[in-house]
């Protein structure tokens, strides 16, 4: 009998501990495992290092002060260029950063996935990414070209959190939107891998309703599955729903004003996920 890996978001967070390096899938304000992030916000977890193509996941964890360090290529809400909480944390030196080129981030995850100490890449050469992180080294090609390249070190993750459209109870998971982003790579780079999804379905249904190429994760890449309808809210989760632009604006406005933020956290973030979804007005 294949294992049943269903869990709750709070059970996922109970598997994490202070100081862990956590990779978060999605991209900007798209298909972020926000229900899992909200579960972290409800917890006492602290000193996290977050690795992310960043969006409001990073912003909210900066707001709560649970992130010590962000490893990122960008942090953006897409339709709002800058995440206000990440900006606030940076401009007040409340968070450490390791700023990488987007391709370097992928390269580091791939090195971790392949159990290599590093992988070579051109990105970073000549830029201040190398100047600002003296731990980054270069390597010279041992072949006749002798080219100098960045030796991008493996970005090993203690845990990966991703959100997909469908999964079965065993951890086979499917994306139905236009882009897989790097969710599979985040899982391959991590010790423990947790996928939240819009809906848990029977295994047979995964391939009955969509091409097999949509099956991004198989069960050996996944340790826990959480069913969290609208769990990517307010980021997009095509084709199930688009980004909630109105709510994203509410978030951004509230983040810029302490009084509004107190109201925001009180209304949306102080209760459980069901309370959150009720407050943001999930269609009945």
């Amino acid at each position, binding site marked *: 009998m294949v294992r049943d890996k269903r869990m709750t978001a709070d059970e996922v967070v109970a598997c994490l501990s202070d100081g862990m390096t956590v990779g978060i899938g999605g*991209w900007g304000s798209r298909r972020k495992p926000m229900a899992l992030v909200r579960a972290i916000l409800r917890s006492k977890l602290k000193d996290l290092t977050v690795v992310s193509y*960043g969006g409001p996941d990073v912003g909210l964890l900066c707001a709560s002060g649970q992130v010590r360090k962000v490893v*990122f*290529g*960008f*942090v*953006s809400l897409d339709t709002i*260029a*800058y995440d206000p909480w*990440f*900006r606030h944390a*940076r*401009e*007040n*030196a409340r968070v450490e950063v390791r*700023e*990488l*080129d*987007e*391709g*370097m981030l*992928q390269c580091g995850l791939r090195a971790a996935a392949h159990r290599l100490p590093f992988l070579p*890449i*051109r*990105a*970073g*050469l*000549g*830029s*201040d*990414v190398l*100047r*600002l992180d003296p731990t980054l080294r270069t390597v010279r090609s041992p072949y006749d070209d002798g*080219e*100098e390249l960045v030796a991008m070190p493996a970005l090993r993750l203690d845990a990966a959190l991703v959100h997909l459209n469908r999964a079965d109870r065993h951890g086979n998971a499917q994306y139905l939107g*236009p*882009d*897989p*982003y*790097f969710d599979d790579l985040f899982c391959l780079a991590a010790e423990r891998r947790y996928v939240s999804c819009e809906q848990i379905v029977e295994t047979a249904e995964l391939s009955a309703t969509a091409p097999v190429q949509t099956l991004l994760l198989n069960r050996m890449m996944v340790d826990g599955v959480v069913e969290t309808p609208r769990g990517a809210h307010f980021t997009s989760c095509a084709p199930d729903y688009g980004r909630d632009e109105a709510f994203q604006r509410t978030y951004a406005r509230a983040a810029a004003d302490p009084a509004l933020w107190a109201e925001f956290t009180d209304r949306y973030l102080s209760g459980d996920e069901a309370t959150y979804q009720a407050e943001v007005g999930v269609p009945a």
Partner: protein
Amino acid sequence: MRADSCAVACADLFRGDGEILASPMGTMPTLGARLARLTFAPDLLISDGEAMLFADTPALGTAGQVEGWLPYRAVFDVLAWGRRHVVMGANQLDRFGNQNISCVGDHAQPQRQLLGVRGAPGNTVNHRTSYWVPKHSPRVFVDHVDMVSGVGYDKATGPFHDIHRVVTDLAVLDFNTPTHTMRLVSVHPGVTVAEVQAATGFALSIEDVVETRRPTPEELTLLRTLDPDNLREREAPTREPAVQQATLR
């Protein structure tokens, strides 16, 4: 209209590029890439800015017929493969074409956190890169950028570094000088060389400056079709002289 000159100058960035991926960031470069494809660069590949490649050339903000699928991971492969021309924005640019989109001020505690370096370090050492600056000012064209995101000519490395041009709301610039420092190529109709120099925080190489070519009647018609809501005018409005003075101060 100033915005039409900007759109045509952005289109001209892609002249001769052949069958490669155009990756324009922002309204004006996107309009330029689409105009180029409908006229002198029919082989260009263009996308919706996400994962779909368009078989046709739709107006801004509308969907087109899909001809291919290029999720971010595939874009990263194309980037490393080199068949790509990106047009990025720039919060700061220096005379060698170093670009900053990361932060203003000290990186440890910036005065202003911006996007982050995104793909700029990789783009600039892997394939042709151009920049679009909607408001040419000394705040953008600075002596030194605070965080080198896109790599300029003084730090250029590897075999594929190629900063092509900078298009702004005032002018077209490139690095075609013996020391690869920024050169004024053309000023848009109605703009003076002095005005461009005054809006630039370092000395430009200025020699044989011409006027940016005017759009052809066919191009003007296409621009109206591609951008019926005139978003280009909003991004690069024709500056009134009084506004110009205020900007320069």
